[in-house]
């Protein structure tokens, strides 16, 4: 009842504007809409030059909202959807995708560091491994796309379907119990404490299975660099489920980590010439502005429903990338 009254309050009625926008952008980000846009692109070579950057900006604005509400990074949605449904070569989509993920992580970093939620003690060793690996991944990804871009599309599609399954099945733990810290974690003093704002309690944490966790970041870095994806989808489960880091610290440290991991891969793509400002800037700005709106909508939206919807979109985007790479043409 109280919730009903709150929903009727002017504050929330005012927010109905955002809901309408959200629905609009969900529609725009929907695969069928994007597919229609792709058809225009394929057959509409007579479009003025500003057409695609404008559509891209609006599309990314919608993605930004949805990404925040679904609790995923922008890059993981951006690369498969834009490479699947926009007329850009996968090289430029990956270059822009990394810049999108990087800009978002850099903007979020200061707040996470000041509140001591992102742990540098944890992030630094992980970042070193992940950023070195992402260079290897970026170079390998560029080599593969030079060989045959369809290989990258198929691998990307398979990875995206894997991510969707991971998001669907992984059950993160709020405060994992770590009874004994391993030798490496102890040697690196990877532990910390944060203030839980909900309970006003100081939560101390430490890691276990640190060597395994660090080894996993080799794979995470390679995938991030190879496909131009931000790697929050992988960082969080590794930090939380394998290394036993509390979820809040995992989420914050993961976001901060992206600012380091994606920097190295972004440089490889940028130096290669894969960042075209006409594509990259509207993508970065669209996603950034969208995420601001997304944060405002967090209190009134139903994140669970949106999360499932995003997982569905990821399945579709992954299947579309595989379809495109194999040249089957089943999904248009």
């Amino acid at each position: 009842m109280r919730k009903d009254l709150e929903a009727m309050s002017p504050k929330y009625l005012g927010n109905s504007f955002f809901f309408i926008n959200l629905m609009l952008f969900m529609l725009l980000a929907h695969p069928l809409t994007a597919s229609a846009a792709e058809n225009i692109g394929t057959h509409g070579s007579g479009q003025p030059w500003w057409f695609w950057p404008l559509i891209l900006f609006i599309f990314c604005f919608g993605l930004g909202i949805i990404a925040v509400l679904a609790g995923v990074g922008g890059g993981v949605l951006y690369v498969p959807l834009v490479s699947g449904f926009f007329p850009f070569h996968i090289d430029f989509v990956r270059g822009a995708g990394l810049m999108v993920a990087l800009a978002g992580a850099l903007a979020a970093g200061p707040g996470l560091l000041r509140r001591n939620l992102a742990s540098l003690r944890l992030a630094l060793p992980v970042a070193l491994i992940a950023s070195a690996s992402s260079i290897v991944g970026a170079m390998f990804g560029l080599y593969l796309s030079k060989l045959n871009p369809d290989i990258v599309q198929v691998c990307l599609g398979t990875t995206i379907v894997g991510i969707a399954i991971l998001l669907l099945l992984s059950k993160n733990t709020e405060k994992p119990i770590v009874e004994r810290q391993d030798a490496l974690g102890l040697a690196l003093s990877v532990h910390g404490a944060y203030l839980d704002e909900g309970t006003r309690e100081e939560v101390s944490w430490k890691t276990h299975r640190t060597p395994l966790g660090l080894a996993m970041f080799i794979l995470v870095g390679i995938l991030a660099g190879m496909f131009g994806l931000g790697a929050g989808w992988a960082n969080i489960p590794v930090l939380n489920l394998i290394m036993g880091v509390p979820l809040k610290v995992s989420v914050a440290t993961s976001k901060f980590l992206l600012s380091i991991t994606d920097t190295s891969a972004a440089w490889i793509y940028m130096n290669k010439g894969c960042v075209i400002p006409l594509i990259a800037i509207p993508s970065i700005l669209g996603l950034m502005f969208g995420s601001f709106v997304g944060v405002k909508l967090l209190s009134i939206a139903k994140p669970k429903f949106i999360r499932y919807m995003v997982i569905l979109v990821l399945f579709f985007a992954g299947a579309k990338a595989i379809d495109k790479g194999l040249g089957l043409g089943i999904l248009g």
Partner: protein
Amino acid sequence: MSNGTPNNLKPMPEQIAYANVLFIGAWTGIVLMIITYIIYLGGILPPHVDLPLITQHWDKGVDEFLEITHSPHGWGWLTLLSKGDFINFIGVVLLALLTIICYLLLIVGYKKRRDWTYFAIAILEVAVLSLAASGLLGAGGH
């Protein structure tokens, strides 16, 4: 970094300095991107590559695209800063350089604290990022 002891909730000063530099740098980069993009699309500075030419060839691989548009790779954009399209790289490159700048602060902090393990990790990270930024890896190819 602040977590010298589990009960220490306060970040160490270098972490705050990192956050401050990141905040100023990230927003400067984003504002620069907006300004330069307006300059680009508004035609205030002539582009190196005509806009319709980009849209005609953005479906091609990067090597072919660079060849057709006579665009540079690596740090070659620095020679084209008077062009509307390449001026956009100022903001983009600032974002990509920020982490290296922030890590330099950490190196100083860890040295001061004689935390040699993390001092070495920070130096190695700067080396990795600088190598990526140098253009020695991955650039070229056409």
